[in-house]
């Protein structure tokens, strides 16, 4: 209840919350709530009109964000918030579209959509809460789980290598890539505000605790244990080469803004297509 009261008492964001949906479903110590709060504060920080904002989520704990925000919000299918959001944005370029989901949803089942949206430089913001596992289904291994991490489906340790998300997104063509933990609330809020205003594809990885399942199996049984780990092991390196941002179990977490570049957005390129199509159709009629 402490978390719920804290959220409701925050006047700056309560206008963006569906009060009649609270308390939320997230476990004590979960990192998703703080990331959502940062996103809601970032709306004001970026001075955006709430009517223009769409939030699209997939399935999973982070996928529930769409249900708590008092904005036009869409809770879609597992892995598919990015293509759904792509349709929203392409059909109405005036919308400011944010995809809010988790690592399993966005990077495993939805991984193809993630890299293609970045490649297209589609003007949207993707906030990926990375808790290294599938929380809602009880803590199975995910595509960002560090090598050797214990999960309910890697009882002998994770035998796969994880994605380094900033590296993946930078290589795919994202215009803006940042990573922060939920210990870095100020930086996270600022990064989300920047991303919301940034033309093109913006990706923010927000690392957060999942004490009830992932944490319990990896010596971080309380949310505070994870925060202590972030405090001790986070290294702020703005502008770092994202290939150096891989995360090993209990190893350092490189945080910061890695990519902030200008590149023509998909919307800008499509406008050119319309101009060309109309020039051509003036000279050639019929079929």
């Amino acid at each position, binding site marked *: 209840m402490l978390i719920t009261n804290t959220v409701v008492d925050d006047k700056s964001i309560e206008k963006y919350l569906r009060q*009649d949906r609270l308390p939320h479903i997230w476990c004590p110590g979960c990192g998703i709530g703080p990331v959502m709060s940062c996103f809601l504060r970032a709306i004001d920080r970026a001075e955006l009109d709430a009517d223009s904002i769409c939030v699209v989520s997939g399935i999973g704990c982070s996928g529930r964000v769409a249900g708590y925000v008092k904005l036009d919000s869409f809770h879609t299918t597992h892995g598919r918030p990015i293509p759904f959001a792509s349709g929203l*944005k392409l*059909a109405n370029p005036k*919308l400011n579209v944010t995809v809010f989901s988790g690592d399993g949803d966005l990077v495993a089942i939805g991984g193809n959509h993630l890299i293609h949206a970045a490649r297209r430089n589609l003007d949207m913001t993707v906030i990926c809460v990375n808790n290294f596992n599938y929380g809602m289904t009880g803590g199975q291994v995910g595509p960002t789980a560090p090598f050797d991490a214990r999960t309910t489906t890697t009882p002998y340790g994770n035998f796969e290598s994880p994605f380094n998300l900033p590296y993946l997104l930078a290589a795919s063509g994202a215009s803006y890539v940042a990573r922060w933990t939920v210990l870095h609330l100020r930086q996270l809020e600022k990064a989300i505000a920047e991303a919301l205003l940034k033309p093109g594809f913006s990706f923010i990885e927000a690392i957060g605790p999942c004490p009830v399942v992932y944490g319990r199996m990896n010596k971080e049984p309380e949310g505070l244990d994870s925060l202590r780990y972030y405090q001790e092991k986070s290294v702020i390196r703005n502008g770092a080469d994202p290939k150096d941002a891989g995360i090993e179990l209990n190893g350092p977490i490189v945080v910061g803004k890695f990519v902030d570049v200008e590149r023509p957005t998909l919307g800008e390129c499509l406008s050119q297509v319309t101009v060309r199509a109309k020039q051509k159709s003036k000279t050639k009629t019929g079929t």
Partner: protein
Amino acid sequence: MTDNQALVGEFFINGDVACAEGAISAGCRFFAGYPITPATEVAERMSLRLPQVDGTYIQMEDEIASICAVLGASWAGVKAMTSTSGPGFSLMTENIGLGVMLETPCVVVDIQRAGPSTGLPTLVGQQDMMQARWGSHGSYEIIALSPSSPQHMFDLTIEAFNLSEKYRVPVLIMSDEVVGHMSEKVVIPYVDPDSLVERRRPSVSPNEYLPYQASDNLVPPMAIAGEGYHFHVTGLTHDERGYPVMTADAQDKLIRRLVDKIRLNKNDIIKYREFQLEDADIVVCAYGITTRIAQFAVELARNDGIRAGLLQLITIWPFAEDRIKELSQQAKSFIVPEINAGQIVFEVERCAADRAKTVLVPCMGGSVHSPENILTAIRESVC
């Protein structure tokens, strides 16, 4: 052709192109798709035409992304379509279910080829007919139409958009490779935008708006993104507010309405065409390209003095069960030719019950029936 206007006139075009032109005439301004034989020409035509009319064409990374982008575009207030064939249709089915659950108007075109799996990519099939009905998990009703010529592709694509806007449901155009690839004369009339059906929009203020509060015809008015309604929609079972409710009661209320909005309006939705049925005691029941061969077979049978007739199913789902039940009072038998190992025949058999015999004339795909196939079945029914 001028800016922002559909083509008008007579054209010699194939069914895929006619479908694309029908969509433009219906006001479709968003298309997301993925290349697949034999549906690619729909996408190619849309990529040429949509930018001319201030619409958006996008080739997505797969068919799953395509249907999801179509749903998103519809929620941005733009009429949207995708086209595919069997393998892509399989990939789309989960999110057709999302379209049903969110009550999202959109049109999905399936230019059917022979399967299963990769099957015969360039050759005809009518093998996704039950997948159209039951492909997505869960209990639901859907609308599916079956065109039998390029002209029919044009006409039914407009009809599909009108039905999807009226009932807030994905509408499937279950065409096939022959109709998609054959070129015939297509007359494209001027389509008055006022004659098109547009989804009902909320008439109340955002504070009073409940996204899933249904009115008399069970179809709720639909807000679109960016207009200040701050609505929430979810694929989870939800109440009138659009909020998830994980109870059997909420499920019962929602699913009954989603099903009833189609079932109780079936007389408005269902269309079929009849040929020489007045005195027929043998009814050939066909759909899509097979109708054209079936009609020829019926004519041949009539020449032999056999009282045969044709029922062309234009709406496949919801199924024209009332008409088939009626016909089963007068008919001795139903002959059902289809390019599969038996799909729609089971629906006909259900409706005919024990009153009339039902005979399947199967064709496994790769070609259409020969008229003799169907004629033989008609003759055998006489004996």
